[in-house]
């Protein structure tokens, strides 16, 4: 009887240890690098019902931010992105937010009013998330250069606003016919080892 109880206890402990080990491997960190790859095309609706394609931003530097209204850390970056939109929109830069809210515009529209978001928001879906390598955590942010290449991918709140800004300026200042992805400088600082 005691042997049976001991065996059950060991078995349960092993099961929990396996579960625990799986949990420690945080979701969203085991992705292969997307730096330098073409940003996948998409067609998503904006708040006015208009279909928006990534190709609509051809020749611009695009900050593509996957976020959701229920994501607290996303709130930290939204004011940064509003500043970037205001500061750089005349230099060929755009912020595009992709909301991953299951409840759709019902949840998103009031939030945009409350946060006074000044950049374009699209309603995302799992297919677009998969196209971008699986958006398992929010925020997940991509910076796309003028050639449509992914310059970096950031999972979670980024290092800081100034580092983000430097990376944007780096891409805006790059010659228009030279792919900017995978270069050093501010992008390397911001993207780290990603």
């Amino acid at each position: 009887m005691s042997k049976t109880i001991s065996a059950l206890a060991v078995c349960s402990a092993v099961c929990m240890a396996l579960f625990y080990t799986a949990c420690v491997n945080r979701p969203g960190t085991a992705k292969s690098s997307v730096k330098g790859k073409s940003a996948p095309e998409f067609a998503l609706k904006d708040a006015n019902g208009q279909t928006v394609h990534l190709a609509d931003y051809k020749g611009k530097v695009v900050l593509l931010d996957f976020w959701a209204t229920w994501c607290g850390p996303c709130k930290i970056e939204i004011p940064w992105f509003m500043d970037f939109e205001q500061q750089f929109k005349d230099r060929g830069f755009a912020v595009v937010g992709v909301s991953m809210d299951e409840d759709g515009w019902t949840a998103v529209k009031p939030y945009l009013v409350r946060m006074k978001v000044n950049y374009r928001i699209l309603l995302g879906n799992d297919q677009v998330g998969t196209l971008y390598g699986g958006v398992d955590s929010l925020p997940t942010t991509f910076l796309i250069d003028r050639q449509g290449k992914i310059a970096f991918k950031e999972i979670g709140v980024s290092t800081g606003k100034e580092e983000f800004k430097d990376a944007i300026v780096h891409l805006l200042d790059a010659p228009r016919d030279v792919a900017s992805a995978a270069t050093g400088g501010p992008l390397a600082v911001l993207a780290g080892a990603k």
Partner: protein
Amino acid sequence: MAPWPSLRAQSNGVLAAAPAERLNIKRGSSAELKLKAQLQPGFHVNSNTPADEYLIPLKLTWTKEPLEAEQVTYPKPELEKYAFSANPVSVFSGNFEIVTRFKAPATAPPGLAIIAGKLRYQACNNKECLPPRTIDLRATVNIE
């Protein structure tokens, strides 16, 4: 964080949860079932009463048969301050228990049965959030 040795966890993401034991209940009476939950270190889930309307609350629900869930009691939440919120956020972290008081109808058939439930949660850490997820729960009940 030491795992509960007897917890056969059902997990989905960073949260694992399982009934603590088999529920024994007499027909026409009530009994409580503890659900043990274990959250990955560094993460929190919103409590059942988050202050912000946009945050997704933790919610435990059970099917209506063969027992009636009379009351679900969540633990006292922690109020934590995060960089993204001006006010403290009501959360659960680490190990916690949710207690459900079930009532067995007088007409319930005696013997072993299964009750099914769902635990919906949304987890974050200081830097990122994971999408809302639902854990499917099953508990064995012995109706006497």
